[in-house]
């Protein structure tokens, strides 16, 4: 996918995240569209544009919704790096790989947010964090699956995958 299209996708996700998506929340929880885009683009594309766009729109999220700047931006960069690391080990053209990588990244991002919140004074404990994760994980994995099925045909095949040896 071209850089412009990716930028537009990120912009649409940013705008929908805090506005329209809240109207379709499930038990007051919504998937994180920006996070899903960061995961899927990092998985399917090898360039650095995902890091740049994820960091940029994460910064916009910080300005709009976070008490301190840099929380979401650094979280997106962290997730990009994690996905790049996972790509060295797992086959990105496998659905199971996607679910595993996606699940780990979503949990990691939530854990990161919770730690940042604790540093800023949130009194919510780890048990409360754990209670929120199943539904949040399910929603994000569902979005990741839809994005994967839509984008995988447009990704360049990775010739180093064992399927193609």
């Amino acid at each position, binding site marked *: 996918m071209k850089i412009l299209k990716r930028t537009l996708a990120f912009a649409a996700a940013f705008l929908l*995240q*805090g*506005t329209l*998506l*809240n109207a379709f*929340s499930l038990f*007051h*929880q*919504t998937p*994180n569209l920006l996070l899903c885009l960061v995961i899927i683009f990092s998985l399917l594309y090898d360039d650095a544009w995902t890091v740049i766009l994820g960091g940029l729109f994460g910064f916009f999220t910080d300005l*709009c*919704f*976070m*008490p301190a700047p840099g929380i979401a931006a650094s979280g997106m960069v962290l997730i990009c790096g994690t996905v790049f690391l996972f790509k060295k080990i797992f086959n990105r053209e496998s659905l199971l790989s996607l679910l595993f990588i996606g699940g780990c990244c979503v949990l990691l991002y939530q854990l990161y*947010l*919770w730690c*940042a*919140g604790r540093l*800023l*004074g*949130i*009194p*919510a404990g780890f048990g*409360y964090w754990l209670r*929120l994760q199943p539904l949040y994980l399910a929603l994000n994995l569902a979005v990741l699956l839809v994005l994967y099925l839509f984008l995988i045909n447009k990704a360049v095949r990775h010739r180093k995958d064992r399927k193609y040896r």
Partner: protein
Amino acid sequence: MRWIRKHKKTAGILCFLLILAGAILFSGSEAGRKTAAGSLIRQGVAAVQKPFSAAGRGLRENVGGILNYRAVVRENKELKREISRLKTENIDLRLKASQLEDLSRLSAALDYRDPDSGGAAVAADVIAMDSSSWFNVFTVNRGTESGIGPGSVVTDGSALAGKVTGCGKGWAKVTAVIDESSSVSFKVLRDMSLLGIVQGDGKGGLKGFMLDGKASVIDGDTVVTTSIGIYPQGLEIGKITDVRFNNDTQLREVTIEPSADFKNLQRVAVLP
């Protein structure tokens, strides 16, 4: 003719009286109509009257004051008393204006908002809300152009929702009252002498304590804001759902369910 030569004086008088009678009759018949003779006569009369009327006026002004001296003195005293009273009233009004100006400056410096002034709240729509469960921040579509500034109180119409933490033209960032960074002093509606402090518990609710460890609060009590702090008094915060005594801190801790529905907040009122 011999009679006129013998009685010249009598004839002369009789002649003058006849002319005079004729003139009177003529004037009577021509009354209201401007004639050359009448204009001439009037002009002549006026010319003679002017110096005489000036002289009479001079005599009245100069000589009459001497004759009415006592009345003039009495009138002078009354006028002096009236001037003195008006001067005092003028000074008093100027002092009041100056005091009012000082009070206005003090009010502006302290950012005092008269609770009885009935200042109009600004209605605003919630245009963006944080979807994560950790930070309770949302954005509304009104900002500095509506008089909103940092610290402006936000309500959902009746209950306290939060305060403005950042704003610009056309937008304002609001931190909800359930955010852990917000502390609110409250009093119990059932008994206004019961005071406490509450803040967000990080799970979408409020947790706090009563200032008096022996305060008799029960589940279901409604709590409202006090006038302490930035929030105006009387705004509903929520209802107490749990009361327990902490033996370590010796404080009566309360859990409060906020009245504002933060998950479905769509329209708010901002108090500039």
